[in-house]
């Protein structure tokens, strides 16, 4: 099997203040391969967004810090880099797109300037060359009027257009890895289909590795090759998308699938998960899902389960179901 492009090992990102520690990301492992999509799924409070910010070394400080772990991009540990070295990586080896394209794009710069900025910074292009390349990039993400769009401001574009412009910006330096944090959540379903198509194209034709972070299981099922389900700052289940969707084993994953209404099925009542997500400032000692789990036994509340393999490549963090 090929070597992963990105290897994340035991990543921990904590927010430490005088009277408490918020363990937003608490020991996360995963691999991302060239030309493949890893979907990271979870609800609010699962730690998925903070994981992506950690990979990009954009954790809000001073309380927030990566306290442990490695993020190996092509063998190089990003956690150990200083800010100047990291700036060379961001936008260059690693591209990022965020949820709200209106807040992620600079409202006072024209689209052409923003995309050009990336090229000037990382490829030392002249302003003129960078504009020409920006037109080319915009065309490649589906803008037929690219020469006009480079002179427009973000507020003149629709949400879907802004997101496509962001993808153009993220891909400007042809990064090997693209991190997309809820890229289509704010978009209408028909526009989402366009943006996902575009991302699929990047994966197939440019062999870009993509980390797709979302709470939308439907999007993950469509786009991801591999999936990691997060809960309470940890990965609770991981495997190929086929494994996770055909055979969700962890009680949380299973409950999540059962609670979502789908277009093609009719259910009278949606299964629900009683209780609420635990606070990252105050995790219980054992399994973090135990107090909401219908299968919990006494040991679950006391001992934190390790990740175990239930079938080759399919891991779960549960002592009850695995055995």
């Amino acid at each position: 099997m090929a070597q992963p492009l990105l290897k994340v090992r035991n990543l921990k990102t904590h927010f430490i203040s005088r009277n408490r520690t918020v363990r937003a990301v608490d020991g996360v492992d995963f691999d991302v391969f060239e030309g493949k999509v890893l979907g990271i799924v979870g609800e609010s409070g699962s730690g998925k967004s903070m994981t992506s910010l950690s990979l990009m070394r954009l954790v809000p400080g001073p309380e927030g810090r990566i306290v442990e772990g490695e993020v190996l991009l092509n063998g190089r540990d990003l956690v150990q880099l200083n800010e100047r070295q990291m700036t060379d990586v961001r936008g260059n080896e690693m591209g990022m797109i965020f949820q709200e394209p209106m807040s992620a794009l600079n409202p006072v710069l024209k689209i052409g300037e923003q995309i050009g900025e990336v090229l000037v910074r990382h490829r030392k292009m002249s302003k003129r060359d960078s504009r020409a390349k920006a037109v080319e990039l915009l065309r490649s993400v589906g803008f037929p009027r690219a020469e006009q769009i480079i002179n427009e401001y973000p507020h003149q574009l629709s949400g879907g257009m802004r997101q496509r412009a962001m993808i153009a910006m993220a891909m400007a330096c042809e990064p090997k890895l693209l991190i997309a944090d809820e890229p289509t959540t704010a978009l209408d379903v028909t526009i989402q289909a366009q943006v996902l198509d575009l991302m699929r194209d990047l994966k197939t034709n440019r062999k870009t590795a993509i980390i797709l972070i979302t709470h939308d299981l439907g999007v993950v099922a469509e786009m991801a090759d591999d999936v990691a389900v997060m809960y309470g700052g940890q990965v609770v289940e991981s495997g190929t998308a086929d494994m996770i969707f055909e055979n969700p084993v962890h009680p949380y994953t299973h409950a999540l699938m059962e609670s979502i209404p789908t277009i093609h099925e009719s259910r009278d009542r949606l299964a629900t998960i009683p209780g609420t997500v635990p606070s990252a400032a105050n995790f219980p000692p054992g399994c973090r899902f135990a107090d909401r789990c219908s299968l919990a036994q006494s040991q679950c509340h006391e001992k934190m389960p390790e990740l175990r393999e239930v079938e080759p490549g399919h891991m779960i963090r549960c002592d009850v179901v695995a055995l």
Partner: protein
Amino acid sequence: MSVAESEVPVQTSTDTLLEVRAIKRYFPILGGVLRRKVGEVKAVDDVSFVLKKGETLGIVGESGCGKSTTGRLIMRIDEPTSGSIFLEGKDITRMRGEALRRLRPNFQMVFQDPYSSLNPRMSVGALVAEPLIVNRRGSRSEQRDEVVRLLETVGLSADARVRYPHEFSGGQRQRIAIARALALRPKLIVADEAVSALDVSIQAQILNLLADLRKEFGLSYVFISHNLAVVKHVSDRVGVMYLGRMAELAPRDLLYSNPMHPYTQALLSAAPEPKRELRRERIVLVGDVPSPAKPPSGCAFHTRCPRVMEVCRTQRPELRDYGGGQIVACHLYA
């Protein structure tokens, strides 16, 4: 181009709770030095439908389709530019002031954002009691008891009364909003994206709650959402809106299994589906949604329709009934 009046067979019978007839809501665009009207945003552009007692009508569509504006018109927190709205046979289109206030207990609304729909300076008890106090229902102690009953009905404990909205999660705040909406025992609840801001597992709790309340309180709902799966789950009939117009309106199962309007087909095919074996051929629409300030001529969807014909560019299609209660506005079938 002349705008056709809908030909929807509008039945007004005794089991009709709400009737909406050819409503339009145009917002003027003011411009120039003298701030004259230079254009209009046609947010709702001739929409008609009927809601029977005990029924849930889902209204689905993407941003800018006019579904939220339609919800506000039904609730009369906005007034239509033209057309009529009947609640239990009474014409409420132009009602205001005391007359409208007297009818308010019959129809209530739950909004999308549980963080802004509750006054942060009022305790939960005061929020839920307010409709009772304003409408002078019961004595002080009866109101207190009712508030406790309502909170328990929505799955919150009585001690929530003394706490403030910011102490609760999004899902809990939405429960508070629902308790408040139920206080006057309305016949109709308009839910505008009521679960969109909630996490998936919380959404499931609220949807189950709404279903239970419908049975317990004999409610009818107009459920507005952009989420096709959620709408399918709660609705008896579903209307699909595009650029201020109703493209298709049909009983739930019929709409989802046999969508007739090309927009409905594209919308359904675009929704991501977790189960691989249930996935269908995807229709990806080209281009973006036009602005409601400059809607296309003829059929509003013609600029993106994969099956566009010449007539679509010039003539607006009328809504026609194709049997089984499936009503579609499309030249393909006319």
